[in-house]
């Protein structure tokens, strides 16, 4: 990880959930949802986190917002550690870091008007009611919803795309510096998703925002991200600039993931299976490299030791890191697209 000042830096973030069962309801297993994840987001950039269900990308987002308490891990915002002496507390963190969720309906209070929802947080943080309402109206206008038409409406009266615009406006109401977008356009129809992505680009520029963009959609992540982090079963398997990840992926999982992307050319359909089997259960995942059970290159060392996230052996250090023991696995050309 570079030493450039990062707006958000996370070191060794870990969260295990106990699974209880049996007649005495004892702890019978552990879900290793997020295991030793480190990342940094520089001010003004968009970091994409991509991976399949169960890879821990949404849990990571919730841990960063402290919606869940991590078991381990240091979180630094603008160089100051969250929850440490001389650092910042969670309330201050949340004023600077806000989140937009996938389910636009579940994330709004159904009994509150649109204006009320957006103005709520500024009021809770001490802004006068009239000033909070004025800010909410300005934000509604900014996200493309005419305040006179929408301010007094309730969430159920809006379409999914309109509700997600409201959620974005609400996330911006505290004038945060970083916004976590957790599958924020995944539930929207494609033509509506494109509108919201354009809006996100405009807002980023206007308010100097930094984005952490979490999605399973490989195309959207490639479009929006400056750097990308690929997760598999609770761990980071590869990270680097977007062009490097998509153009010269080093981890066999990243390559398989990219090769599974449906083509848009009916004459170049996918012919061979890039990857067999489902992702294993994050309850008691495989030892060592967690991808080894689906990997064609796996050998004894992969079962024995967890590969570190590093530049490949003998490779000059750069920002493109991969967690893989087997040099041959990292060099194969990407097939398919």
């Amino acid at each position, binding site marked *: 990880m570079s030493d450039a000042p990062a707006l958000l830096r996370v070191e060794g973030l870990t969260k295990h959930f106990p699974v209880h069962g049996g007649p005495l309801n004892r702890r019978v297993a552990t879900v290793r949802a997020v295991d030793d994840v480190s990342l940094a987001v520089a001010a003004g950039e968009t970091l994409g986190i991509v991976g399949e269900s169960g890879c821990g990308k949404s849990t990571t987002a919730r841990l960063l917002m402290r919606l869940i308490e991590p078991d381990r891990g240091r979180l630094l915002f603008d160089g100051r550690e969250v929850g440490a002496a001389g650092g910042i507390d969670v309330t201050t963190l949340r004023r600077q870091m806000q989140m937009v969720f996938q389910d636009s309906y579940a994330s709004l209070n159904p009994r509150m008007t649109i204006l009320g929802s957006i103005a709520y947080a500024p009021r809770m943080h001490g802004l006068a009611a009239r000033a909070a309402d004025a800010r909410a109206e300005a934000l509604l206008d900014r996200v493309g919803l005419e305040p006179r038409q929408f301010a007094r409406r309730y969430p159920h009266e809006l379409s999914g795309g309109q509700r997600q615009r409201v959620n974005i406006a609400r996330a911006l109401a505290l004038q945060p510096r970083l916004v976590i977008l957790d599958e924020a356009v995944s539930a929207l129809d*494609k*033509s509506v998703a494109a509108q919201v992505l354009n809006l996100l680009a405009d807002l980023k520029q206007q308010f100097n925002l930094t984005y952490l963009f979490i999605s399973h959609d490989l195309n959207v992540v490639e479009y929006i991200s400056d750097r990308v982090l690929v997760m598999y079963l609770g761990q980071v398997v590869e990270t680097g600039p977007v062009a490097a990840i998509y153009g010269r992926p080093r981890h066999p999982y990243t390559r398989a993931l990219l090769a599974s992307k449906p083509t*848009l050319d009916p004459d170049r359909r996918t012919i061979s299976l890039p990857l067999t089997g489902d992702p294993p259960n994050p309850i008691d995942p495989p030892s060592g490299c967690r991808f080894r059970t689906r990997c064609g290159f796996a050998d004894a060392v992969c079962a024995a030791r967890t590969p570190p996230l590093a530049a490949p052996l003998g490779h000059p250090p750069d920002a493109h890191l991969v967690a893989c023991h087997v040099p041959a696995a990292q060099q194969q050309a990407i097939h398919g697209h």
Partner: protein
Amino acid sequence: MDTSPPALEVDELSVVFRGREGDMAAVTAASFAVARGEVLTLLGESGSGKSVTLKAMMGLLPGHACITGAVRVAGRDILTLPAAALAKARGGELSMIFQEPMAALDPVYTIGEQIAETIIQHEGVTWREAARRALDLLERVAIPSAARRLRNYPHELSGGMRQRAMIALALACQPTVLLADEPTTALDVTVQMQILLLLRELQRELGMSVVFVTHDVGVAAEISDRIAVMYAGRLVETGTVREVMRQPRHPYTAGLLASIVHGGLRGRRLETIPGSPPSLAALPPGCAFQPRCARADARCGTAQPPSVALAPGTMARCFHPG
């Protein structure tokens, strides 16, 4: 020239949901045909009527749905069949797979029991014969250690395996037409590709006709022979997968394809279709796409555009096809 009827013929199918707050025209006068061994994809966004079309064909809509038109499987209209004959056709020559296999499979019976029961119901074979065919089917959909999996309950399988088990169940009586309602939408991308390849292989081997419903243009490009695009309950464009993807004629199709996000567009603004689809309870008098359409003129706002045949099997419902 082959004079036998197409495997599936849908003729002026309309579905209206009657409600207290007025009627919702979910599907309006949809007509299409699927040849033997052909995959037709109904492509559209939510509320376009693609899933309702499938459910109407399968007789799965609730009582307040008013269905008109005809759905002919091998020449026989199944909408007018008496209940017993419909039950025989469903799961027989006409079968369906769903987005959510947990809702389609019965949680209290094993996979093997469910497949065998379907075969016995339709063909009256012995339990032993049905169990043997169930094993064949699980092997056919590439479920590893099939004999053991026969004795599993649905919740004991992973998402991808459950999807395969549901496909095996749908294929139990060698349907001539398979209806597939977004069967890969809930799956991870690596598993989605496995299921698409499996469906393609089975469809070719068994010579099945498939109506595949999806909102994902990439999935449509992977699976279809022909594509029918739906908007606000109507078919607005049909053509071969190459024609529709490369030279879309209807402005909605063109807009949909142009708004696809991919890495090559980095740093550029995405093309979008302004506005959002109309409410099905209050469709505009003319073309439903007219309020969002750059090509629209006065006529589009007042008259319903006819379906213009541009070539055999190619149609666009537009006054100004591109």
